[in-house]
């Protein structure tokens, strides 16, 4: 953790997203899934995006990878990766950009392994396609890769169904870092796993990150997990970022009522039992304004003007 924190901000950002807007265009109406979102990720930094289902966090990840399909359309803004304009890349450039520069672990990625190929065949496929290694060299590297995530290389001969869920997930993470990308996108990497396994996967990712020094965009709805892993984080609501700051600061001092509700949605494991409210059914935030800096490095969307989102309303509706 200390390694990456020292490098925080000392370099050019690896990824810079500016005013990104993504729309889902329908026949009669279109929906704005991501609305003028800006953030950047420094070298070796773990940046978390928190929010509930439907808030647009996965759409952002897919935009960065240029995986959006119709009816989704990037309607505005820019994504720059290491100085290159991602949105202007040609098909050939994209092919090299994906997996070599940016790799992604999808939600329940452990089910994305091909069931009729062995783990070894699937990993060597990456090396022969992207790096052009010989079969022998690829196999050797594939074995090393599995060792990196603490799976016995003898498992190269196993089929996915012969591995436990946690092992499969680790294999997928190993495949993601195979080509030493400078950015790893993790979209809810542990949602389908049990808590004990989840924590080990997260520890593994942290260890890999320290070893290989890549940056991470970490997407989840689990605030406790996110605060534990990330250096900096952004909280999304309805396609907008409502708050962004250092993870520890969001944990101790959340400013936006939505962030406060999210933090309050996770009961603590220690201390007295106190009643929590979470977010009441039906409370909506509308017309979220641009972020303003309230403390150094702590940006919040102003919420005071709108009467429907004052804390009093939140409490009243919770009854």
């Amino acid at each position, binding site marked *: 953790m200390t390694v990456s924190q020292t490098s925080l901000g000392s370099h050019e950002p690896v990824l810079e997203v500016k005013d990104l807007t993504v729309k889902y265009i329908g026949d009669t109406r279109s929906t704005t899934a991501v609305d003028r979102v800006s953030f950047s990720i420094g070298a070796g930094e773990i940046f978390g995006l928190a929010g509930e289902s439907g808030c647009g966090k996965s759409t952002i990840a897919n935009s960065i990878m240029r995986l959006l399909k119709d009816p989704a359309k990037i309607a505005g803004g820019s994504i720059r990766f290491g100085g290159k304009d991602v949105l202007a890349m040609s098909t050939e450039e994209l092919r090299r950009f994906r997996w070599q520069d940016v790799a992604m672990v999808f939600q329940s990625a452990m089910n994305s392994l091909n069931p009729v190929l062995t783990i070894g065949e699937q990993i060597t496929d990456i090396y022969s396609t992207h790096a052009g290694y010989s079969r022998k060299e690829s196999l050797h590297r594939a074995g090393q890769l599995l060792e990196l995530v603490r799976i*016995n290389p003898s498992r190269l*001969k196993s089929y996915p169904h012969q591995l436990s869920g946690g092992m499969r997930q680790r294999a997928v993470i190993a495949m993601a870092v195979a080509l030493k990308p400078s950015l790893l996108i993790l979209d809810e990497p542990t949602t389908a796993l049990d*808590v004990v396994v989840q924590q080990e996967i997260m520890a593994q990712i942290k260890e890999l990150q320290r070893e290989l020094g890549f940056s991470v965009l970490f997407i989840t709805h689990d605030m*406790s997990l996110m605060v534990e892993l990330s250096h900096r984080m952004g909280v999304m609501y309805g396609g907008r970022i409502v708050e962004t700051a250092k993870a520890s600061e969001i944990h101790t001092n959340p400013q936006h009522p939505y962030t406060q509700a999210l933090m309050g949605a996770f009961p*603590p494991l220690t201390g007295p*039992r106190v009643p929590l409210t979470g977010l009441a*059914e039906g409370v909506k935030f509308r017309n979220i304004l641009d972020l303003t800096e309230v403390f150094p490095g702590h940006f919040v969307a102003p919420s005071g003007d709108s009467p429907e989102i004052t804390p009093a309303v939140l409490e009243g509706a919770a009854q």
Partner: protein
Amino acid sequence: MSHSAMPTSTRPTDDTPALEIRGLGKQFPLGGLFSRESVRALHGVDLSLGRGEIVALVGESGSGKSTLARCVARLERPTTGEILLDGVDVLKRDRFQASRAFRAQVQMVFQDPFGSLNPAHRIEHFLRRSLTIHGKTGGSEKETQRRLEELITTVGLQPDMLNSYPHELSGGQRQRVAIARALAVEPEVILADEPTSMLDVSVRIGVLNLMRKLRDDKGISMLYITHDLASARYLADRIAVMFAGEIVEQGESLDLLANPAHPYTQLLVSAVPDPARAGSYDPVRRAELRQAVMASTSCAFEGDPNQACSSEESVRHQVGDPENRHWVRCHLYRPWAGAGGHALAGEPALPADDSEMKVSA
């Protein structure tokens, strides 16, 4: 009560527990018709649910908690054991399937509110049907309507939602409808199987609060099944920890999570993400706990005058103050040989012998 600002448990007025499970076991046959193999999903489970008490059953997936709920709900027939409802063994009373009288006493709320409501019907249909089947319509249409509105407001929804279809409701609202449907028959016991795990995080607490309110107001006993220790601590009076089809530890929620005695419970507690103790993950300690779950060599309660430790019998040791009703199964007791949950499978690969390491190139 001094520890909290909210009422924890309404003490049972009657000594007979609302629900008592004794020595429940369930085996699922494996293989073909003539195979004698079976999987032991539950073994010797004892659990009681006092009146107006919320007990959480925690454990990882595959530990048998849902099987237990399905057995109690009579969706699955247990191989051995007794299920006593108000002191009456329902397995003997209704031998083949659950009677309507039983359904009026025990209701279930399932994990998936998207799958448990038929999309073709309005909300009113689900609630009205429950009332009709169990003869709680009250005789007149006017009275039925009043009861429908009362039900829907009890779970915190607006009466005009009776005319909505399930797809018009959010996940949290749907789960509230599922709870209202369970309430319609005025049950004594509600079995809630992971009722919040498919809901958006910010509305989960609201559903938990609703469950607590129903307990406080109506005295309904609840079995809350979850893998989320933090929410179990928040909602339940007592927690039972399940591993490989057996209960390994049980006690008052706050005490159990503050002083977990069984290595499996310790494993679970240490795995809960908690920003307050970030970076506390210790792989060595984790490996020790795993080892201890499967084959402990020493018992922390050795010399306990009341009970002799044994690796064959599942001896229970009392932990701390008897008031906390906290007990742990002796660590020496070896889990069933086929046991080994996901939590134990996460073990990093041990260095294998070289012959196996060689990958055919």
